[in-house]
């Protein structure tokens, strides 16, 4: 295998750059063949053992371990052929300027290899998904750069304007004027999307869509001059990228979730990134994010919560134990306390519980926490 070019910035910026990186990947393979060696390429190992927590940045990233993908090898031949097929298909998407989902890509590549080979190129999407990641890491691009979008999930509202260059048109979207439903965060906020005026003081991320609607109805973001985001559970790539971009504009990011390991994990995935997406590292992590609540210690300050706890589920307990084993979480004493409290009481508090006294109490709680800077790290 030939030596690959040195890594460039993970964000190529222009589709032409991505296009030529794909082409170069192919050219290097042809050179391998001409040199009489098995065509191959190198990609970072995405195995868990190669996921490290980067202290200096505060996010999960891949270590230095590399893996070679090569064709003339029984164990790899099929995957290699499939990877090249994916790369070639993405090159075509870029050329045409068309986008599809990774499921759409799978269907584009689900065909029989031919009369002599009784086998499909791909017969299950689980085969193609990891190969997309292989290409992403091999040529240092994101799948969104390869014109592959993901399902949209997440809604935003607040004082900012987005210019969306879509096809031949450019649309201006005022996130202040999205009514009760908000602006659905696109899967790709990098290519063709521009944030023209961001006038907010901070970003508030609330775990649940229902809570976002409550706060939107309260006019919370108007009163607070903040950008209100909900990932609707675990944050999608697009939502994380959006928060990341806003954080890069020096906006503080505050996260509000349930008081349970599940909610806290959503916070930690937003903050430090996740194992699965470690290859995207700090392009997707927001180490600056801070946690508002709900916390176990809130019970002391808001005594009504005492009666609004519910029983923690088995998955909450398991996830809490798991989180305690992550050094980047367990280095924070406050979090260890919180997690141990969950394990001890086996109770949890939903963010919705803050509507207990009155519907608008949530807003009061958030304001109080944010202005008093009562955060967890």
């Amino acid at each position, binding site marked *: 295998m030939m030596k690959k070019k040195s890594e460039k910035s993970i964000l190529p910026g222009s589709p032409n750059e991505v296009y030529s990186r794909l082409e170069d990947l192919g050219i290097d393979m042809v050179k391998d063949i001409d040199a009489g060696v098995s065509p191959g390429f190198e990609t970072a190992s995405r195995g868990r053992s190669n996921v490290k927590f980067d202290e200096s940045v505060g996010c999960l990233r891949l270590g230095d371990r590399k*893996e070679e993908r090569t064709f003339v090898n029984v164990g790899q031949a099929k995957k290699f052929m499939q990877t090249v097929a994916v790369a070639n298909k993405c090159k075509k998407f870029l050329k045409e300027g068309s986008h599809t989902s990774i499921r759409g890509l799978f269907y584009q590549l689900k065909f029989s290899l031919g009369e002599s080979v009784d086998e499909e190129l791909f017969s299950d999407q689980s085969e193609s998904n990891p190969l997309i990641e292989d290409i992403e890491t091999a040529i240092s691009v994101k799948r969104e750069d390869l014109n592959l979008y993901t399902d949209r999930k997440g809604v935003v509202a607040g004082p900012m304007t987005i210019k969306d260059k879509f096809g031949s048109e450019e649309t201006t979207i005022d996130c202040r004027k999205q009514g009760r439903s908000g602006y659905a965060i696109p899967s790709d906020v990098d290519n063709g999307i521009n944030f023209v005026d961001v006038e907010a003081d901070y970003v508030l991320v609330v775990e649940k869509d229902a809570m976002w609607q409550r706060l939107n109805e309260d006019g919370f973001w108007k009163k607070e001059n903040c950008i209100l985001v909900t990932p609707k559970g675990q944050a999608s790539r697009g939502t994380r990228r959006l928060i990341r971009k806003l954080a890069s504009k020096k906006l503080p990011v505050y996260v509000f979730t349930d008081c349970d390991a599940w909610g806290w994990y959503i916070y930690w995935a937003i903050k430090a990134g*996740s194992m699965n*997406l470690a290859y995207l590292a700090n392009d997707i992590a927001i180490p600056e994010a801070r946690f508002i609540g709900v916390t176990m210690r809130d019970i002391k300050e808001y005594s009504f919560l005492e009666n609004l706890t519910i029983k923690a589920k088995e998955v909450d307990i398991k996830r809490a134990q798991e989180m305690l084993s992550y050094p980047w979480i367990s280095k924070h004493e406050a979090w260890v306390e919180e997690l141990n409290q969950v394990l001890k009481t086996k109770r949890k508090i939903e963010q919705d519980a803050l509507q207990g006294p009155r519907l608008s109490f949530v807003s009061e709680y958030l304001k109080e926490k944010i202005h008093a800077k009562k955060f967890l790290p």
Partner: protein
Amino acid sequence: MGEIDKVFSEFKEHSVAEFFKKNRQMLGFSGKTRSLTTIIHEYVTNSLDAAEEAKVAPEISVEIKEIDKEKYHVRVQDNALGIPEKHIGKVFGVMLAGTKFHRYVQQRGQQGIGATGCTMFSQVTTGKPVHVISAYDKKVVTCDVEVDFKTNGALVSNMAKEEQDGSRRGVTVEADFAEVKYDKSSYGVFEYLKRTAIANPHAKITLLDPFGETHVFPRSVEQIPPKPMPVLPHPLGLAKNDLLEFAHADKENMKVSSFLQNSLARVSAQKVKELESLCAGVDFSKKPADMSWDDADKIVGAFGQVKWIAPATDAIIPIGQEQITKSLQSILNPEFLSVRERPPKIYRGGIPFIIEAAIAYGGQSGKQVAEGTQPEILRYANRAPLIFDSAGCSITESVKNIEWSRYGLKNFDQLPITILVNIVSVHIPYTGAGKQAISDEEEVVGEIRSAVMEVARDLQRHMSGLRSEKDRAARKNAVLRYVGQLSGDLAELSGKDTKAALEKKLILLIEGKYTKQLEESNDSIPEDAASGGSEGDDDEKEE
């Protein structure tokens, strides 16, 4: 007196016909299929022995015709020296009249009661005599022979003589037998003759079966095996009944002491004295014919306590690696064959023996049963096939006790494998008078195991070679199948080169790698490539 006369003058007569008439199963005449096989065995071994003695390459033809239900006409013809007129009666009509009985030689039939046993069987089941044609010198003698059960004498009738130019030679015996059955089981005549042919590659054996089908087991080696040297029986090889029979047949020695000294090997006057001192109450000066069962028991017991010089080893002759190889190749046409001969070893403190073993795989190896193919074991003692009593035989036991999976033969029970084991010795350690199974003498069992394991290892090497060859081809094809698709995509992705050109180059690359066996040892699925996509957080709901 000519050579033939000398051979046949050694017949000794014994009156036991009446006894055997009542106990015919002792001669192997039990069961319908087995009886017919025994008949063929007796005639064919006589022919083989006769041909070997005459230094003639044996050519034996066997014909079996069904004349009625469970009634057959048998005709066996050989090309040996023929039997002189005056000896025909003794060979076919007198019990215990064989040359072999008294001249202990490594030979196929060791009892010399065979041909007469057949005559008796014919008489008992059909009431007819056997018909014998003997061609020798410039004569052809034809006659019928019967056994006189009262006197153990032969009744020869219808004697006719013809002159000939000397070109005809050999014995033809014809007889009818009832209460017998021809079938294709492993106890049957066909299987017996096949096995005989395998062990006697210098012989050509033809069988015309009752269905009118002719089976020819061709001669695969020209060389006639050397004639085993006749030796006297060695004390260590004798069982009580052997000794008793010998003693009772003895008509030359006046005393037991001289009988022992003259009739057995390695017995000196000094040894007789030693034996006498060990056998309190046995009168060594009485006539050998008066030896009692009790005397024989004590003497045989004493044999085991005396130090003996080992028997002469030139009396034992294996089939030979080359001969077994050629015969198995010609009869089984196997894909793989290994033949091993172990060096001579000694059992029971002094009896030399040699184990030969062979393993054949593929071709006509193994036996066909209803469920498919099964391994078959061909057992031989002094190149005579052991057809019956396989369950109680050390050869069968040894083969079955081998852990075949350790030789890479996991489904051994379904493989087309033929295993041949021949034990060669002046005294074969049979389990009983039927002489169809080898007893579990420790040294013999050990040698059988070693020999079979040696050939098993050879087969293992062959099979693993095959596997890796097959494996390599499979690996190559596993990569080749993707060349077409890859070449097309790569041509487009790189914008360089055409699909056809890339395809050609890739095929060359792959062919080169998998034929030159330059494959890297790490040609396997890398850990992370296999698992990279599926591991990770279960709650990443991105799509």
